[in-house]
């Protein structure tokens, strides 16, 4: 960090998230937290640690294992002017409550002609890499982004987790806040080294819908998000030594998608690798490709490379799971193919 930057501390992503929530709870008494094990446990992935002790059970509410019930209740509380942060423990559990999310939360503002707002944050843990199998390892951000009416944010690092959480709580729309378990900095899971990082002191807001250039480069662009940003940065560092200058774009949100930033990096390098831990087909990687081609197919000098889940359920066995994940090795191979090396 440069010496004149805002004062920062080093926090893990989970602590940065919690700090942002706590600050907003101090600022606005309508902000409350509800979900499974968000109280005494502090969130299975440490997304609410310490909030119960600080704000009490009226504002930090453990719920029954009843996602339709409590996510529906969060919608009702939000339409009454509260600003709930409601946690879906694993995104994979959306199957039991998608009606409330897709048919209600996402549509009320539109169906009401803008007369009813639903200011809530749906936090949810995503991602695999630790053998949790097909029902506890998905990303599914493409599924949520496909549905009009939901903003979808996917932070990759502690500072963005704090800044995007603050923005999400203050947003008058339902915001799905998808945090990757691999960047939370959990003591009981292999940590990505960048899951602990500098976070500005005091209020920190990252506007939703602005991608970040995580690394500048000239030769090839990796457009990615969440944990894969770190794999991309690792690959970029490795390839720098081999004379390949990689630019890494961290999308930070799917809805809104920062199309301008995507076009800018592709215009700069002419070569694109899309890295997406979600399923490959009918999802984010295809959407990115379509937006580029719709704008100007001539921006690309070589075909797009996609590194995504190859449309398989997430397997259990380590060797199989890592064959499905967008590993640094797969990313590196795709980059080398893009630069024809």
């Amino acid at each position, binding site marked *: 960090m440069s010496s004149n930057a805002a004062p920062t501390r080093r926090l893990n992503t989970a602590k940065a998230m919690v700090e942002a929530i706590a600050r907003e709870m101090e600022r606005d008494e309508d902000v409350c937290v509800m979900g499974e094990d968000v109280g005494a446990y502090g969130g299975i992935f440490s997304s609410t640690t310490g909030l119960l002790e600080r704000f009490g059970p*009226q504002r930090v*509410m453990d*719920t*029954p294992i*009843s996602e*339709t*019930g*409590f*996510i*529906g*209740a*969060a*919608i*009702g*509380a*939000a*339409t*009454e*002017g*509260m600003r*709930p942060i409601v946690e879906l423990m694993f995104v994979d559990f959306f199957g*039991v409550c998608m*009606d*409330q999310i897709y*048919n*209600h939360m996402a*549509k*009320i*503002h*539109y*169906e*009401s*002609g*803008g*007369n*009813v*707002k639903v*200011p809530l944050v749906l936090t949810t843990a995503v991602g695999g890499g630790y053998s949790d199998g097909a029902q506890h390892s998905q990303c599914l951000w493409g599924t949520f982004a496909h549905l*009009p*009416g939901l*903003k979808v944010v996917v932070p990759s690092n502690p500072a963005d987790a704090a800044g995007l959480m603050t923005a999400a709580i203050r*947003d*008058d*729309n339902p915001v799905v806040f998808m945090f990757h378990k691999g960047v939370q900095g959990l003591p009981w899971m292999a940590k990505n080294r960048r899951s602990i990082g500098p976070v500005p002191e005091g209020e920190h807001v990252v506007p939703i819908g602005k991608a970040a250039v995580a690394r500048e480069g000239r030769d090839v662009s990796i457009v990615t998000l969440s944990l894969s940003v770190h794999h991309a940065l690792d690959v970029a560092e490795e390839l720098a030594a081999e004379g390949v200058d990689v630019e890494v774009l961290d999308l930070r949100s799917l809805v809104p998608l920062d199309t301008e930033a995507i076009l800018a990096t592709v215009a700069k390098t002419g070569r694109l690798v899309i890295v997406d831990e979600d399923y490959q087909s009918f999802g984010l990687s295809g959407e990115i490709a379509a937006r580029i081609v719709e704008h100007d197919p001539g921006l690309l000098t070589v075909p797009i490379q996609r590194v995504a889940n190859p449309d398989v359920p997430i397997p259990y066995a380590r060797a199989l799971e890592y064959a499905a994940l967008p590993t640094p090795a797969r990313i590196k191979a795709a980059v080398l193919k893009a630069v024809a090396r």
Partner: protein
Amino acid sequence: MEQTVQRDLYQQMVLIRAYEEAILREYHADKKPVFDIGAGLIPGEMHLSAGQEPVAAGVCAHSIPGDSVTATHRPHHFALAHGVDMKAMTAEIFGRVDGLGRGRGGHMHLFDPMTKFSCSGIVGEGLPVAVGQALAFSRRGTGNVAIAVAGEGAANQGAFHEALNLAAVWKLPVLFVIEDNDWGISVPRSAATSVPSNATRAQAYGIPGVRVEDNAVEAVYAAAGSAVERARNGGGPTLLEVHTLRLWGHFEGDAQGYRDDLEQVPGRDPIPGYEQHLRSAGVLDDAAVARIRGAAVELVEQAIDFAKSSPEPDPSTVGNYVFAQA
């Protein structure tokens, strides 16, 4: 029961019936000779509430400003009884810019923040939402109650059971109202529901359950009154089931060939019976009945005229209101 209350209940039911008759007329006006669900001034599915007026009138007689209602795909009776602006609601049903949702919702998706009314086309969807509204009322100590309406078919949805459990665990001011009209579209209650009364199911959640038979508006009024008072005083939720009547089809265009009780249906219409009761009790006479009916029709026709005169939405605005702007 006080005569003024009786007259109000009757008047509310007559207003609802006049409304549904007018919507019925307008809905079918330009769907002849061949029925095309997408044609005419009012396109789409149309679920009318004739016969179920006693439930809405009896329950909403107890709602006060700040109380909420989450209703079903058959929402008009509760919307009117809860005080939703009839003109804006009608304009929405006609898909016009002056509608509650500026033409984006339609008859199953009426949202009125002024009266905290909402409804949904998904069976059981509004029940958990009412729990959250009640949570907000409870936290703010407003003394308000969330009224959650569903059909007897919805009591077999997971959302029903999750909402009852959550409201009971958190002891929230919710009145769950089940309108048992005997039919889940074409499937009789007996083939779909394991118990004769959903009031029984309330016991499973440790909350009071009451069933009102005979579509009797005064009995609904009394039962709802106790439940609402209990909720306002911090006593928690109640489940109230009313055995009501679907006077017409599930939706317009439903020939009801499956319905073995069809011949008896007109004779079970709750309004003539209640009117006769009030005449016998000296609460109503010919003049009062004519006056109430005339006033209802006049209000309804004004709303219909308003809706028809409201412009259709500009197609270029299709993308507006997906998101709230900062």
